[in-house]
């Protein structure tokens, strides 16, 4: 998704001279062409995330549309109060780009894992939280963020994220995308679990379970129309995310269900409330918390049988 981000940002910068990119010393070589094409509009601010966010806010107050880029935990938690006060309180057109959502930085360890960022970012007033599901979605998501007049948290993967969409995609902040139709249940995914969600749906189809896949790339604001449709048209809702089950997509939908008296059963798949105890690749760490085709498909099948 990283390369797709650069492509999307380049397109946005060509369209809008206010678009700028700040990095806190992340992105070796990948921004060279951007910096060359847009002199003065790429800035490595150094390893100083709080300053980066404050500078981004000042740039936005001065009429620019800055993107502030770092590895997800550094872009969100390290400088959280600057995001809250400088960006969100002023409701500025700043996009914070969190690279390496979830376990993307596997062997780098828990300091680099990002399993709380959605929870924390969506708790901030005025903040929209956007988690594209594959590299194809990243490009239009960047354009949508650049055109957005208020704060956006854009959570992307890293490199080598699988492609789901076979053609161009219509991407609108706050508008979920249905990837697979289905009538038995709905699997709602955000961010980099989208390829997994599609695989799970295919696996379930093989055992005659019709599983809709809804890509809720925007966790805030939720696409409530899409949720109402899924809750009315299918028998159960399942959420899938490479993020803690506390505060992420599943929590957001549980809050929505509670407030809207939605009686459709809901089950959350996500990371444990724990730091990884051993080192591991993204695939290994996903497997530890059950984010696999086998585990999720089996659980969905069992739940659907139990609720019949």
């Amino acid at each position, binding site marked *: 998704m990283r390369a797709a981000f650069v492509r999307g940002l380049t397109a946005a910068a060509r369209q809008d001279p206010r678009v700028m990119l700040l990095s806190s010393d992340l992105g070796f070589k990948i921004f060279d062409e951007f910096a060359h094409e847009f002199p003065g509009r790429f800035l490595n601010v150094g390893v100083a995330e709080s*300053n980066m966010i404050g500078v981004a806010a000042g740039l936005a107050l001065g009429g620019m549309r800055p993107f502030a880029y770092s590895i997800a935990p550094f872009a969100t938690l390290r400088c959280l109060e600057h995001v809250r006060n*400088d960006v969100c309180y002023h409701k500025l057109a700043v996009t914070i780009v969190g690279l390496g959502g979830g376990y993307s930085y596997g062997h780098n360890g828990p300091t680099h894992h990002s399993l709380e960022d959605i929870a924390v970012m969506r708790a901030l007033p005025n903040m929209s939280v956007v988690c594209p599901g594959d590299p194809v979605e990243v490009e239009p998501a960047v354009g949508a963020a650049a055109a957005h007049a208020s704060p956006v948290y854009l959570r992307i993967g890293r490199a080598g994220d699988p492609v789901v969409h076979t053609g161009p995609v219509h991407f609108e902040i706050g508008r979920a995308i249905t990837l697979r139709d289905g009538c038995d249940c709905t699997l709602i995914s955000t961010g980099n679990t989208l390829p997994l969600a599609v695989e799970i749906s295919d696996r379930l189809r093989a055992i005659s379970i019709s599983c809709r896949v809804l890509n809720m790339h925007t966790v805030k604001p939720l696409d409530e129309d899409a949720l109402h449709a899924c809750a009315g048209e299918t028998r159960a809702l399942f959420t899938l995310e490479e993020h803690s089950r506390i505060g992420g997509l599943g929590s957001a939908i549980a809050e929505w269900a509670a407030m809207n008296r939605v009686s459709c059963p809901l089950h959350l798949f996500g990371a444990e409330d724990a730091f990884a105890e051993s080192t591991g690749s993204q695939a290994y760490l996903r497997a530890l918390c059950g984010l696999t085709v086998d585990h999720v498909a089996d659980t969905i099948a069992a739940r659907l049988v139990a609720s019949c």
Partner: protein
Amino acid sequence: MFQPGKTLTDVNAPSLQARARAVRARVLRMAHAGRTPHVASALSCVDLLVALYFSVLRIDPANPEDPNRDRLLLSKGHGCMAQYGALAERGFFPEAVLAEYARDGGRLAEHPGPHCVPGIEAATGSLGHGLPIGAGLALAAKVRGANYRVFVVLSDGECYEGSVWEAALFAPVLNLAGLTAIVDYNGWSAMAPTRPAMEPLAEKWRAFGWSVREIDGHNLESLASVLAQVPFEPGRPSAIIARTVKGKGVSFMENDLEWHYRPPNDQDLQRALLEISG
């Protein structure tokens, strides 16, 4: 480009000293009526703000959103009674608005909200935010070819914040000559003297690449004349270490941390008003 307000060139306009007295009186009345703390912090920066608003800043109260206006950020947001008072004095909003300070439903909180009233450029209150924002504003001017300048007033206690020094490292590298940091160096944080940690404060800013002047933060003429000279060096951000007195102007509030917390009662107010009018 707009011109400075008429009052500045009017020979009958009140002196800077008279302006400062009027702002101090407002600070005392706000703290008294609102029963709020930080009166001494506000009194500490009154003269800095009066010099800026009445002698330095290219601003027009009739056009407070002019994209080319100079920006002043009070990064020590807890001193905002002085800023509210100075903005009212400068004509950014009617005097009556000050009655909304620390009142339910009012626009003026004990730390300023974003654009809560004309003239407030940024919400502050948590320390260490103004300088990064100011650096971003100065950078935006540079990128867009605008010629506005940015002034950020910090407290010395605020200089304990790491983000101040992140921005202090950043601004000289970007040659942000349009940025001026002014440290209201009254020697006190909320609970302790600051000098043991801050000294040598001017040397610290110098070592980070700023062009530094140290001045008396209560001498309005010298403040006005030094501030008129920024940038002190081409291509460099300027830092002014303004030696100030916490609680300046009210003898029983000066250098007494009690007045970081205690709101003036009726009797305190009367005594204080008498002193500042004298």
